[in-house]
């Protein structure tokens, strides 16, 4: 039995005002639950929203992030696809052309590679190449980054690929609340958004106020105020940076931690305000150093804030190797030690 839903607004129509379901409490949720709640609320708010991918319906996703959506909204709106990532993104584009708001899942970061052509050649370019005729309100969720002891291809940092592709927006939450709100905002955005979920933080709990008005995409958060060194990071590593800041106190170094939340659009004003104050910046990300987002941030900081700097902008990152085997990943991933080494180099000039 085909479930028929009302004809959605077409491209060119005004997007409906975001409608956020009222929940009479502030539940404590894991990040995985917060993402699930955001998907649920987005699907309830707008029947053009479709969720699909590998194992998302019957199983509820390999991380259970899509649990209950197929039961609640039916198999027309949440469905399992054949095992083909290019196909998943490709049909999302066709659905967007017909006025839907697809929220496909790529099961793991490493498996975004087969979808690369659809994302880069079509999804990102569609609006520009039709001179604005066709919006692509597609949000691609990708469980991302390392630190969970996984096999190959399950721990990749893909953000640089997307950030180097004009036409995409890229966000990476670090807390359950941000995970909820960034996803709600990504789904109502009429531009394609790559939503990178830090798997390592799926089970962190936090009270998530789903009634609070969500900030638009593109606002960074200062997670800790400090005076000596600005640490710019996102996703999984925000918690790492915060714990490093505690250790830094013992050395008498005061770290200011900025959680970018959104990598494109980039809230450079928040970074600049902090660096003007501290005069020192360290960028931290998991992915390989060469042409990682740290390279862009370091370039931008020195272009605009050169005369405010007391020290070179440094990068605490993964290495230019393939992501290592699980037994070695703790040594490879940037942790508090690698960050504090950079902080020391910034603080103690030769």
């Amino acid at each position, binding site marked *: 039995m085909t479930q028929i839903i009302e004809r959605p607004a077409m491209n060119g129509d005004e997007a409906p005002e975001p409608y956020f379901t009222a929940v009479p409490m502030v539940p404590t949720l894991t990040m995985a639950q917060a993402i699930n709640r955001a998907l649920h609320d987005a699907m309830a708010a707008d029947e053009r929203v479709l969720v699909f991918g590998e194992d998302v319906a019957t199983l509820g996703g390999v991380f259970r992030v899509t649990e209950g959506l197929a039961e609640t909204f039916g198999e027309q709106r949440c469905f399992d696809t054949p095992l083909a990532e290019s*196909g998943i993104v490709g049909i999302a584009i066709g659905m967007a052309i017909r006025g839907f708001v697809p929220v496909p899942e790529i099961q793991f970061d490493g498996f975004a590679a087969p979808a690369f052509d659809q994302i880069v050649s079509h999804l990102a370019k569609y609006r520009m190449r039709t001179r604005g005729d066709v919006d692509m309100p597609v949000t691609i969720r990708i469980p991302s980054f390392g630190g969970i002891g996984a096999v190959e291809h399950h721990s990749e940092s893909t953000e640089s690929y997307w950030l180097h592709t004009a036409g995409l927006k890229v966000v990476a939450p670090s807390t359950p609340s941000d995970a909820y709100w960034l996803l709600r905002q990504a789904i109502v955005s009429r531009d394609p958004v790559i939503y990178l979920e830090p798997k390592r933080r799926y089970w962190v709990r936090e009270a998530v106020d789903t009634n609070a008005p969500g900030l638009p995409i593109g606002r960074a958060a200062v997670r800790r105020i400090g005076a000596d060194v600005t640490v710019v990071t996102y996703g999984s590593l925000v918690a790492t940076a915060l714990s490093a800041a505690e250790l830094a106190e013992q050395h008498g170094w005061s770290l200011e931690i900025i959680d970018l939340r959104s990598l494109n659009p980039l809230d450079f004003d928040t970074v600049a305000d902090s660096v003007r104050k501290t005069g020192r910046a360290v960028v931290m990300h998991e992915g390989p150093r060469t042409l990682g987002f740290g390279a862009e941030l370091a370039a931008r900081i020195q272009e605009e804030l050169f005369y405010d700097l007391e020290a070179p902008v440094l990068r605490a990152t993964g290495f230019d190797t393939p992501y290592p085997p699980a037994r070695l990943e703790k040594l490879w991933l940037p942790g508090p030690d690698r960050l504090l080494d950079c902080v020391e180099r910034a603080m103690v000039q030769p």
Partner: protein
Amino acid sequence: MAEVSAATDVPLAVDLEPVQLVAPDGAPTSEDRYTRDLPPETLSWLYELMVVTRDLDGEFINLQRQGELALFASCRGQEAAQIGAAACLRKTDWLFPQYREIGAFLLRGITPAQMGAVWRGKWHGGIGFTERCCAPIAIPIGTHGLHAVGAAMGAQRLGEDSVTLAFLGDGATSEGDAHEALNFAAVFKAPCVFFIQNNQWAISVPISHQMAAPSIAHRAIGYGMPGIRVDGNDVLACYAVVAEAAKRAREGGGPTLIEAITYRMGPHTTSDDPTRYRTQSEVDHWLALDPIARYRTYLQDAGVWTERLEERVEAKSKRLRSELRESVVGADDFDVAEMFDTVYHDITPELERQREELLTELAKET
């Protein structure tokens, strides 16, 4: 009677002999599974579209040679295939073209100026095509088949009885995305017709190097959908087989893979030199199978072709050629700021900054 799959109710065989309703000499064939009985005005309309498409195609080549267009990909020889396939559909059925479907564009009312803007390099893709339920052109090969399937799955969810037509080429069937598109369409019973114009050549590589299968249509068996071969130079046959596939799709019967056997009479694009890879005798062989000459003879014998029709077609052709020329020659470029403004619905601060940077740079130069 071909064996039928118990699981999918789809024939487990494909007829290698293409469906043909009008023979190369213009005589009706003995084919009786399909009808060639269309109303005279439809028969005339198809003729008009084919002739105008060929004439406009020639004008595109002239304009490219005169330096007004960056490039052009001729559809000469493929008029019957693409016009027959698109003509049997409704205006609300979606087309997902590659880049050689001038006949299908014209049929949908996409203007010569809209097509000219693409080949002149004024803008990518195609502006305003989607207002005609036609996707912009797709330069990457085979990738847009998935868009067609997604649109068809959208139509299912809208409760429409519309059909989506994906135009692919023989080369495209080698791409992984073509496989994913066919498989998704079959799995979801998407109302999508895959129309493969097998024009024998993917730039310089012949179909014999693209695959070892008995035919492109034979691949349908593996996907669990009907596969049909049709004479792509026979407009009525193309019309008939696509109409049948579209009817099945509208009724919930799922997708069909159609292989239209045709020939690219010209080079791949205006940048190509086909004498490096194919013989004149091969081209001459296909010249004798020309879709327009054959159809004109058929219409004459059927009493549909008249001097008045020919005059009308010529007048229309002349008008569209001059429309194209006027829209292209010396045409103004778009405002450079648009290349920034159209990327996102909500432009990013960084892109705004870069736009101002370029505008400042240009202001200094002038």
